[in-house]
């Protein structure tokens, strides 16, 4: 099966065309155009990417299997956890969000839940203390702001 490389090759050709078209739409720089304008280098790249992607379509490598079913779900879960971690870092504060994120990841990777969340909490507290006191870098406290020592 050689669908992966072909699909990717087609996507990359679409990207190359869109990118190249985008380059031709760039405004001329202030002070008149020169031999190499802002569009020259991108146009070169678009041509090279187009040609090399074409090669991928013509001579694709055999596919690596994609993880569907359960493993695929685990992967999606992991990505969702990472996105939520980024989103909740400021509102919840570093320690709580780290406990949740690291804990969930450890748990999903096969640890017992209690140990997983304990690992998360411990690592969050340690890193928070190290950053805030030893390195003088303020990580957000969030919900735990009442603990702040002034």
């Amino acid at each position, binding site marked *: 099966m050689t669908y*992966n*490389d072909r699909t*990717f090759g087609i996507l*990359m050709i679409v*990207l190359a065309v869109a*990118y190249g078209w*985008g380059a031709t739409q*760039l*405004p001329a*720089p*202030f002070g008149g155009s*020169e*031999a*190499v*304008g*802002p569009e*020259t*280098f*991108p146009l070169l*790249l678009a041509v*090279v*990417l187009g040609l*090399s*992607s074409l090669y*991928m379509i013509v*001579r694709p*490598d055999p596919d*690596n299997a*994609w993880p569907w079913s359960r*493993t695929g779900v*685990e*992967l999606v879960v*992991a*990505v969702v956890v*990472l*996105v939520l*971690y*980024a*989103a909740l*870092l*400021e509102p919840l504060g*570093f320690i709580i969000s*780290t406990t949740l*994120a*690291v804990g969930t*990841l*450890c748990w*999903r*990777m*096969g*640890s017992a839940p209690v140990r*997983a969340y304990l*690992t*998360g909490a411990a690592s*969050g507290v340690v*890193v928070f203390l190290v*950053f805030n006191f030893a*390195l003088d*870098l303020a*990580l957000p406290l969030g919900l735990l702001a009442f603990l702040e020592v002034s």
Partner: protein
Amino acid sequence: METLGYLIDGFGVALAPHNLMFALLGAFLGTLIGALPGLGPANGVAILIPLAFTLGLAPETALIMLTAVYAGAMYGGRISSILLNIPGDEPAMMTCLDGYPMAQQGKAAEALAISAVASFIGSLVATIGLILLAPLLAKFALTFGPAEYFALFLLAFATLGGITGKNPMKTVVAACIGLMIATVGIDNTGVQRYTFGVLELYEGVDFIIAIVGLFAISELLFFIEERAGGGKAKMVVNKLKLSWADIRNILPSSLRGGVLGFIAGVLPGAGASLGSFIGYTLEKKVIGKKGYFGQGDPRGVAGPEAGNNGASSGALVPMLTLGVPGSGTTAVLLALLISLNITPGPLMFTQNADIVWGVIAALLIGNFLLLVLNIPLVGIFVKLLSVPPMFLLPIVTMIAFVGIYSISNTTFDLYFMVAFGVAGYIFRKLQIPLVPIILGLLLGPEMEKNLRHAMDISDGDWTILWDSGLAIGLWVFAGLGLILPYIVGPILRRRMRVTTGTGGAEGD
């Protein structure tokens, strides 16, 4: 003699107490990074870069620490090769061949000590080579004009996959993707390109975010997919019984391996894996029937280990003198230089002499530290090796988050990093190499600048790009770099596979 003077100044920098302290920390962390599963050297150095910034380290201190990490990672890779027959990174593959049999015969401690000594000798030989060769190459590189630089960058991309690379066209695709990402932002004529009006993109994509995302986050996803969360069996290491005769026995092998590795490291397209492979085959040839290779011959541990460490020091030569890295890890070190506002390349040897020579001196000192660290502390590293990835990788991910967050204190960067991680996972699935993407991101602005200068000089005549003998030479080598893998690659790969009996791991 000039060189010696600079080197002594360099020692002055590297031996300053706080620099020495960070070198020690770096050497320790580096060995850990090399030893731990799922943390390659490039990955490890990438995660530590934002931390070096947030610590507010001086440029030379940051560079010294990360050079020590780099050197240490090469030491660490051998631990799991010897004890578990699982190479920590690709160049450590050859160490398995004789290291693991030695461990099975109850001589694990000896194998570890021998490989530490051989690594030390290999690095020492290569660092001396670096000291001799780098200033010469830097002087020569001063004659390069913009057209030659443009060709040199192409050469770097073309040879990045290495002679043993599988599909050079994928390297080209990857390099284009990287270069395209590099064009995002306001270019030096003041035109906004591909920003889509998003304020955060005006200054371009921060390559540190891209590197950490591509390496660290995609690694986490790979471990989840392979369900490799469980730990490895506990290992015990016997008490060390090593005599001077043993060390004398491996000296010639180590010296030969170091020299060969250095050459392989300097040459574009060869890299550390080939260095250790040649180191091993040469030892087999030289010693011939007197050896018992494959059954735990200490010289079979020493040769490739010296070769792989020699190659990793050799790989610093093109990075420091030309600003063109030849491997993933040196690309990450280049990222550090650029973000410290140091322009790598020949001028660095005159403009930032203290930094360059400080780093070279740090490499020497780092190797002494590593030798001292490695023999008594090997027990600790072995214990840490059995930390299961299911705890390790989430914590590493968290540290990546903290590092990226602390650069600019915005969550936008974090989303970006996760996006790069998912992209990195998909690329790796498609066997699109990640290193050219990173190199493209790093070299893109320089490449465009040199193209523009060349065109300005020639008044828009494209033939200037292959007008000088040097430029033509670089173009020819770049062409060979893309074509040779199709011709020689399959043969070399087969031979490496036959010797090691494994498929080989990704990346170095």
